[in-house]
């Protein structure tokens, strides 16, 4: 795969009707979010409250985590800690092995995507079935999710119909979302009933009560937690909120920001295991303490994974999630990528327009576009070409005569620069843009001419 987001995007979501449909589907979510925000008189104050709760919770994260651990243990849950992705994979693998679990139903968890859990479990010989419909689609298609909330939004219904015909035996040529969903429901219901264990994420953990909070529209997390005798929940350490009163603030923002719903269909507070069952909670660091220690970047740990910044981002809407090259796409993926995303994440802060739309919709008011700038300044490595260009500009712009000479050269070369073709260094940039019209003469010359005219 290419190293550049724009080149990857050209491969994974090329120009055409699919791209237009992707753009329309995700921007429709942005519009629903706007309408829900306008309809809710508390909305803007909730965003500020959420920002402040997170700033406090993160600055007391040690206390909050210990409090959560104690309350969850009191309720009968077992709490584990994992320093990195490898340890999460080991802990979950061992818990499943100890219980003799061969068949696992999973509900959506961006953290386990980040940590590559599925692949690890499959190598251990465990059958892992993603149960969120979108996750199931991409799992059957052997590809990663492309959106935090709608993992298969890059696929067309015809695509999905063909995939289900092959994998689930749905009627040939059927592309009706209702019937395709019903086919997946039948298949997955049997897998739920046959599962030995459920692996889930969690949207929040409440320190005060030791509750995990799981939010879905489909009900898959609730089915998973209610059937097998083992439930393993994996979450990042930053997910802890202090109190139930704080949780109310986040729940009121989450679905409104994600889909424009006032609340998702199922919101479960899970406090300890059900009788005769086991509940294990795995709290994962995987780079988060490093972000916590870096005051320039701490705010990104406030993210509640609503997807609003993806839906509004001009780069994400055009590129699709696969172009980002790691688990989290969009603006939040570009600011977490350099810290958590490995090699693919390092250059992502440069693939943004800095338009600020992401910051404007974030329910916890993360300064996303400032974060992008901060990573550009100190975080990500720069290409040699960029450094050379900046040095050359420094020399040219420092002296009046060289500046004028450069302007004259640019005006002379203008017609050539606008021409398409591989020899043109601007070819990539011009693929979707046009140069502005030739100004005719320099600003200095036009200003002098104007002064002469008014003097006459």
């Amino acid at each position, binding site marked *: 795969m290419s190293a550049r987001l724009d080149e990857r995007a050209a491969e994974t979501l090329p120009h055409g009707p699919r791209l237009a449909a992707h753009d329309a589907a995700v921007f429709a979510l942005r519009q629903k979010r706007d309408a829900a925000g306008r309809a809710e008189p508390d909305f803007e104050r909730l965003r500020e*409250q959420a920002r402040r709760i997170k700033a406090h919770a993160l600055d007391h994260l040690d206390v909050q*985590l210990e409090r959560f651990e104690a309350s969850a243990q009191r309720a009968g849950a077992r709490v584990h800690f994992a320093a990195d992705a490898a340890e999460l994979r080991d802990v979950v693998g061992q818990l499943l092995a100890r219980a003799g679990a061969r068949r696992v139903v999973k509900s959506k968890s961006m953290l386990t995507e980040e940590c590559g859990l599925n692949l690890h479990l499959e190598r251990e010989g465990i059958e892992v079935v993603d149960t969120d419909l979108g996750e199931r*689609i991409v799992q059957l298609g052997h590809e990663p999710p492309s959106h935090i909330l709608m993992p298969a939004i890059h696929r067309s219904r015809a695509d999905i119909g063909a995939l289900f015909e092959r994998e689930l035996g749905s009627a040939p040529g059927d592309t009706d979302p209702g019937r395709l969903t019903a086919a997946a429901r039948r298949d997955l219901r049997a897998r739920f009933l046959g599962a030995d264990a459920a692996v889930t994420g969690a949207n929040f953990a409440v320190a005060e009560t030791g509750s995990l909070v799981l939010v879905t529209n*489909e*009900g898959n997390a609730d089915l998973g937690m209610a059937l097998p005798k083992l439930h393993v929940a994996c979450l990042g350490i930053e997910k802890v909120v202090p109190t139930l009163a704080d949780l*109310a*603030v986040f729940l009121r923002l989450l679905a409104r920001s994600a889909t424009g*719903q*006032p609340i998702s269909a199922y919101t479960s507070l899970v406090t300890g*295991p059900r009788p005769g069952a086991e509940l294990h909670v795995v709290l994962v660091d995987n780079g988060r303490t490093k972000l916590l220690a870096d005051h320039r970047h701490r705010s990104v740990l406030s993210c509640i994974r609503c997807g609003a910044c993806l839906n509004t981002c001009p780069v994400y809407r055009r590129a699709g999630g696969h172009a980002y090259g790691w688990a989290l796409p969009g603006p939040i993926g570009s600011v977490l990528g350099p810290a958590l995303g490995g090699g693919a994440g390092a250059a992502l802060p440069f693939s943004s327009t800095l338009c600020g739309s992401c910051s404007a919709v974030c329910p916890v008011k993360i300064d996303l576009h400032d974060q992008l700038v901060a990573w550009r300044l100190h975080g990500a490595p720069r290409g040699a070409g960029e450094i050379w260009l900046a040095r050359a500009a420094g020399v040219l712009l420092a002296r009046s005569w060289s500046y004028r000479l450069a302007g004259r050269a640019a005006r002379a070369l203008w017609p050539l620069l606008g021409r398409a073709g591989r020899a043109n260094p601007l070819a990539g940039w011009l693929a979707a843009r046009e140069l502005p019209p030739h100004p005719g003469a320099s600003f200095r010359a036009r200003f002098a001419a104007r002064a002469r005219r008014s003097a006459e």
Partner: protein
Amino acid sequence: MSSRDEILARIRSAVAHAVEAPEPFEPARRRGDFAAFAAQVAAAGGAALGPFRAAEAGAAVTDLCRKWSPAGRVLASDAALLCLGSGPWSPIPADAPPHSLADVEVAILCGALGVAENGAVGLDGREARPRALFVLCERLVLLVETRHVVPDLHAAFAALPEGALAQPHFTFVAGPSKTADIEGELVLGAHGAKELVVVGIDV
């Protein structure tokens, strides 16, 4: 050092315990009546009936069951039986293993509270038992006393029944199960109940 101690040590060296918690949130005043709640249940893809006086509720739910003419079992919780009296439903078998409920068509349960701002019904774990029932059933009927409707989620958490979080779960259910994972088109009935009817009861 264990990963636990290592992570906590790293956090301790990163934080200053200097940022203060904000004052509690003061929500705007809003309606907390059954009609406002019912409108949000409908917006979430469900239906709201009533409110009925307790004596009429049994007939209303019986009519609903006739309309559906369910092929599978119709089960009602003890609290729902107490409220509705006899009808085309039977009690949930005591200690039924969750897997034995896969053929339930209609489940009738009592909600602990209703939230007017979003149409969610709070289901207490002591009532929604076995836990799988409210998701496994094809159609879900939730009885909500009108006096238990609160304006918003802040009020809902303040009004949680005593001991609700000493139970393995407390779930807010807003409308039927749904997904929009295929081209963003809304489909009701992803994994859980395909239909949800809230029945208001005046006590």
